[in-house]
């Protein structure tokens, strides 16, 4: 993929960027709240000066983290430091607040302390976010010196914020990763189509010509023609069908996949519209048809041709595999079993039965063999419209 298009630039940004912006806003707002708290309560503090010092540290840290969290490259150590510093500042509260202020006066960091767990959740997802929230909650309890309703409620809110923000950031990243994958697949498909067109317009035309001309010249040229012809068919099949993607619901086009079995001696006929079946069933059918075809090679001889026909009936999918070999002579069924032919038939039958279908072998001396695989379909589904 090229780096300059706006689409890819969006994809390269951290997908959690809006969450970072939210974190920064929260930090600024809560810092204002902290200033207000110190202004209101400073006269009751046992050490007002220390209160202003801590507020100064918070101001510096806020000023440092706002640009740091808005930058595209966020350094994890800043977030870890954020959590630890927040805890440390929180723990200064007993030194600042007068003993009588513990019940109704906020700790020196106020709600500003909630920002660090939120940042951790955005950076690392919910487990880290919850852990950081829990850590800040523990420090709050230590600073207050009691575990009362207020402290418990703060703890629940801190851990809950870590959980929810963390889940949001994890989800945002997962969605972006999915989008990137989809865009890569799309780009690969487009590239493939372009290649297929250019191969069709150049290489294939030449190969077809070589094949035609060579077979007329005969001799060594005919051999070259045969090789060119094989490559031509292989290449045509490759560029016209290609490895087809499964659809989103796990279905694949049986017709497209079957066509890839075509060679100079195997002709595959399929309907124009796709024949969609679940991916596992398509692979299983394909391997059974492949077995039938290799059977043709073994028993009908290397010169035999084979035809594969796929038909989609309203209630079933039917695949026929026929060869024009010598067929099985009447008396040979038993000896053929010893040769393994019937063994293969048995394994094919087993696999088709497993899928809920049937398979039949028809053969006669000098009439070739013909397998017919029939797989009933679940009622009420239409073949997808192609072309």
């Amino acid at each position, binding site marked *: 993929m090229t780096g300059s298009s706006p689409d890819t630039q969006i994809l390269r940004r951290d997908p959690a960027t809006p969450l970072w912006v939210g974190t920064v806003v929260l930090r600024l707002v809560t810092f204002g709240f902290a200033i207000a708290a110190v202004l209101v309560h400073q006269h009751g503090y046992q050490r007002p000066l220390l209160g202003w010092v801590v507020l100064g540290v918070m101001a510096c840290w806020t000023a440092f983290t706002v640009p740091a969290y808005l930058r595209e490259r966020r350094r994890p150590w800043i977030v870890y430091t954020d959590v630890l510093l927040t805890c440390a500042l929180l723990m200064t509260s007993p030194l600042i607040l007068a003993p009588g202020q513990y019940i109704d006066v906020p700790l020196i960091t106020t709600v500003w302390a909630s920002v660090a767990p939120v940042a951790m959740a955005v950076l690392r997802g919910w487990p880290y976010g919850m852990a950081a929230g829990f850590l800040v909650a523990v420090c709050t309890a230590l600073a207050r010196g009691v575990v009362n309703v207020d402290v418990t409620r703060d703890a629940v809110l801190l851990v809950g914020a870590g959980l929810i923000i963390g889940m949001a950031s994890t989800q945002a990243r997962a969605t972006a990763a999915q989008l990137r994958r989809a865009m890569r697949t799309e780009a690969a498909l487009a590239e493939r189509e372009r290649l297929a067109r250019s191969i069709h317009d150049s290489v294939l035309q030449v190969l077809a010509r070589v094949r035609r001309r060579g077979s007329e010249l005969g001799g060594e040229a005919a051999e070259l023609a045969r090789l060119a012809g094989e490559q031509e068919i292989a290449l045509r099949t490759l560029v016209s069908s290609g490895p087809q993607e499964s659809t989103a619901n796990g279905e694949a086009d049986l017709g497209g996949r079957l066509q890839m079995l075509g060679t100079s001696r195997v002709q*595959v006929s399929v309907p124009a519209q796709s024949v969609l079946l679940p991916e596992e069933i398509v692979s299983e059918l394909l391997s059974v048809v492949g077995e039938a075809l290799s059977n043709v090679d073994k028993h009908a001889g290397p010169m035999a041709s084979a035809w594969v026909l796929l038909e989609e009936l309203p209630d079933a999918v039917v695949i026929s595999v026929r060869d024009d070999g010598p067929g099985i002579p009447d008396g040979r069924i038993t000896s053929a079993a010893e040769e393994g032919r019937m063994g293969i038939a048995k394994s094919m039958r087993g696999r088709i039965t497993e899928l809920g279908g049937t398979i039949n072998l028809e053969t006669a001396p000098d009439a070739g063999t013909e397998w017919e695989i029939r797989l009933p379909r679940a009622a009420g589904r239409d073949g997808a419209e192609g072309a």
Partner: protein
Amino acid sequence: MMADPPISVMVVDDHPLWRDGVARDLSERGFDVRATAGDAAAAVRIAGTVRPDVVLMDLNLGDSSGVDAIRSTVAKLPDTRVLVLSASGEHADVLEAVKAGASGYLVKSASAEELVDAVRRTAEGDPVFTAGLAGLVLGEYRRMAASPDPGVATPELSERETDVLRLVAKGLTAKQIAGRLQISHRTVENHVQSTLRKLQLHNRIELVRYAIEHGLDEDAP
């Protein structure tokens, strides 16, 4: 064997190498190659002038569609037959071509002998069917039966026609089919012919209906 006046042919393909090669193959074997063309518009125009018996048509004509060229040619020249000579992978296109009026289809990887034989049979009015095309036509009838068009009667295959098409799709020759179904060779050809005719007629009716619905009836084929 060829009749006294040689069969006149026109070759349409956007690739000069292929086009000239096929033209030479046919001339060497006694065909009268009247013209060649490299795109659909030229093909229709020139065919109207030279009126060949058979037009050999590639479907992949650069940017233009061979299917439209077939439709115009067949509409203009009822005595000219179109044989599609195309790559094996272009399934939907081949089906469209046949529906538009092509009377046969041969893959480009066919040998020169097969090509010559196909051109002769096309000139005689016999359909040239590969197993692949039979599979497509069979699939098309089944698709139409499964989701019929409202308003137009859906063409159907008779039981015998279905049998014949299935056997063609499984690679049997007309002679083998005749033997297996115990009918004459000629009857087999007629059945194949009729499956094509019905499909082409249906296609024309649909086009006319479409044209009338969309107010384009002055140009209907």
